[in-house]
């Protein structure tokens, strides 16, 4: 019985110490340094845009798969793919500051079905260029400088897979600018 109580006491003390550990490590921390980091409104907006981008890219990949397996006819594919690329472009454009020197139009994004040598950081996601060829990059929606730089080196810059695909060349839709209310209102 005594042993049990001793063990219990020791255990309780250990727990208390463990719980108090953050305070014991940094006992004198001023309140502004003791902040729990939290995404600010810019971060949240960026996150939402990133999700929109990923939605569109994932949808493109699925569309590609569906097209290859015959569920989507060629005309439907062209139409839907164009629309999806617009959406992705929009989100990407809103996310990325202008990428200099990327005026060249790049061909169809590949849905990771055919596997290419893996590019570092390129998650196999098709990523269209943010801007159509001849026009200079559209003016960016305000993502001002204090945008947190990517913390990790392999930033998944939208490296497009530069491999042609056995389908028709993409009709890069002459979307002049990513319009605000654009593709969603379908």
């Amino acid at each position: 019985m005594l042993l049990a109580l001793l063990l219990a006491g020791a255990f309780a003390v250990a727990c208390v110490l463990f719980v108090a550990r953050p305070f014991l490590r940094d006992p004198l921390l001023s309140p502004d340094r003791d902040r729990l980091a939290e995404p600010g409104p810019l971060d949240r907006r960026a996150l939402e845009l990133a999700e929109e981008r990923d939605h569109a890219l994932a949808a493109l990949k699925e569309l590609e798969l569906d097209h290859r397996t015959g569920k989507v006819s060629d005309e439907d594919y062209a139409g839907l793919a164009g629309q999806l690329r617009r959406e992705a472009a929009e989100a990407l454009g809103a996310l990325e500051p202008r990428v200099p020197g990327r005026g060249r139009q790049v061909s169809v994004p590949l849905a990771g079905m055919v596997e290419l040598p893996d590019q570092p950081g390129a998650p196999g996601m098709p990523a269209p260029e943010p801007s159509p060829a001849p026009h200079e990059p559209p003016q960016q929606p305000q993502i001002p400088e204090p945008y947190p730089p990517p913390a990790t080196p392999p930033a998944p810059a939208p490296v497009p897979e530069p491999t042609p695909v056995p389908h028709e060349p993409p009709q890069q839709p002459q979307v002049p600018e990513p319009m605000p209310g654009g593709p969603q209102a379908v």
Partner: protein
Amino acid sequence: MPELGRAALIVCLGLSAYAVVAGGLAAHHRRRRLAVSAQNALVASFAAAAVAAGVLVAGLVRHDFSLAYVADHTSRKLPTAYTISAFWGGQEGSLLLWLLVLTGFSAAAVFLNRRATRDLLAWVVPVLGTVGAFFAFLLVAVSSPFVTQVAPADGAGLNPSLQNPYMVAHPPLLYLGFVGLTVPFAFAMAALLARRADERWIVATRRWTLAAWGFLGIGQLLGAHWAYVEVGWGGYFAWDPVENAALMPWLAATAFLHSVMIQERKGMLKVWNMLLVILAFCLSLFGTFLTRSGVVNSIHSFTQSAIGPWFLGFICAITAGSLALLFLRLPLLRSKTRLESLVSREATFLYNNLLLVALCLTILWGVTYPILSEAVRGEAVTVGRPYYDFFLRVFGLPLLLLMGIGPLVAWRRASLRGLRRMLALPVAVALVVGAALLVVGSGSSRPGLVAYTFSAFVLASIGLEFLRGARARRDTAGESWPAALAALVNRNRRRYGGYVVHASVVLLAIGVAGSSAYQTIREAKLRPGESMQAAGYTLTYRSLSTRPVENRQEVRALVDLRRGDRLVARVEPGKNRYFAEDQVSNEMAIHTSWLRAEDVNVIADQVNPDGSVYFKVLVKPLVNLIWAAGFVFLGGALIAFWPDAREERRLVARYSRAGALPAEA
């Protein structure tokens, strides 16, 4: 040692309560050290629960009958494996198991997410702590496993029907499922509390939900198998409230797993997904409340206990609180996108969701109807098997059909022409199979025939999916068939893992249809030497044997099973009489005929003193497909679960670039 156990539980309660209070304060005021301290408390609560569990296991293994729980559920002669499984054989122990798993999952959730989602995690901790504190409180104040007494010479022993391997595995697996649903719920609530409208919480808990859902599914199948093999009434599912208690959260979780895919593609149905997660979690709590409180007539439930009102109160509080929170955050969750077409894969997911939720709610209604009618009319009215069977058909058969249609429909907008083209072959297969079945006589049961035909359709559809996908790969990458198939599945694990799971559900449907709609049941009283007929089999009762074994006496009737003139098998149905527990258990004999794909179950219903026996014979076609489906289900779930390095990278990038939390100052 019981003092150590009790103390450990009190410490666990204290730590959980601290996690709630400190965690809530830290999240609200954004205090980093306090948040980390609360996380530590949650992790430490797992250690405390583990200590308490260890004390109970030690008491069980040492046959410490001064612990009332040990004395009530074990005996000296009980084999060790079952002695340990007695841990969850009773009310208090099973609550402790729940707490152990809950704190373990909480600690794991905290550990796995400690870097990734700090702001979200800050709110996850108090939510998890709340649930943990509730269960710890029950164990400390209401239903303690460490009640002591004067030690009797021997314990009361374990219910004999629990003394088999299935019952050792079934509860822990189910608990992993029930408790596993707490984590997605906690993340969902945290997202609401943190005012986040993005899907971080879904991404963080996707695999948790999948794993919990998988455990629930496998746990239920094990339970059904146990009921079939051990309990020996010839069936595997009786729509008993306790069985429904596991089915309902599983259905809600299935709906959630599907509708999440819509949110991932179109960012819509955010509110619906929140509701589903709340529903799944509350149903898992409700299920355990039903079992423990004794409010409904069930073969399984514990009799009326003090725990019921506490559970009910907690469930009401959780439901009210989470719905209120959801309502407050409703403006945040507005989606900008719309369902574009009623003929699209998103739409089929929506229909699937509606059917699943409808089935879930009808079962819930059936389970709570006695309680409600007693409260309203003063008289409890129960619904029987026909009610459940009807709604299973009304909602289940269309669901079955949708499993085959869904994969063939394109996202966003499917053209009817394309759809017709895709459906042509599976429909043709289904019609051919249906016609063939009519010829062999399956028309005797219309629902059975429909189920078979739909199943053929779905299997054809799934097979074609794999085929087309592999062929598309071959066309572009020139791989061999096996390589193309492997690469296809590897690249699209969730999709093709999902198809495998669909296939398992189809197998289940075929097995259920066959063994219920097309079964044969015969009963007869036989004296030694006499025979009876059932579905083309002849059963001849030879003799009776009695022998003592370990902790029981076995009475067996030796029966010859013949088909025509050929002796197919010798089966020995009978009964076991357990000494310590003074209990009789039925030992049904099962003969599986692989050639004819059916089971012959022989039950010795009543053994009379004069040596005559009442036999009940059931011939169940295709019943083993149900168990086979379990393996396929497991495989599919594993495929879908398997981490994908590419996708992980993408997600890490998504959340580190946008919404990056700068390193702590």
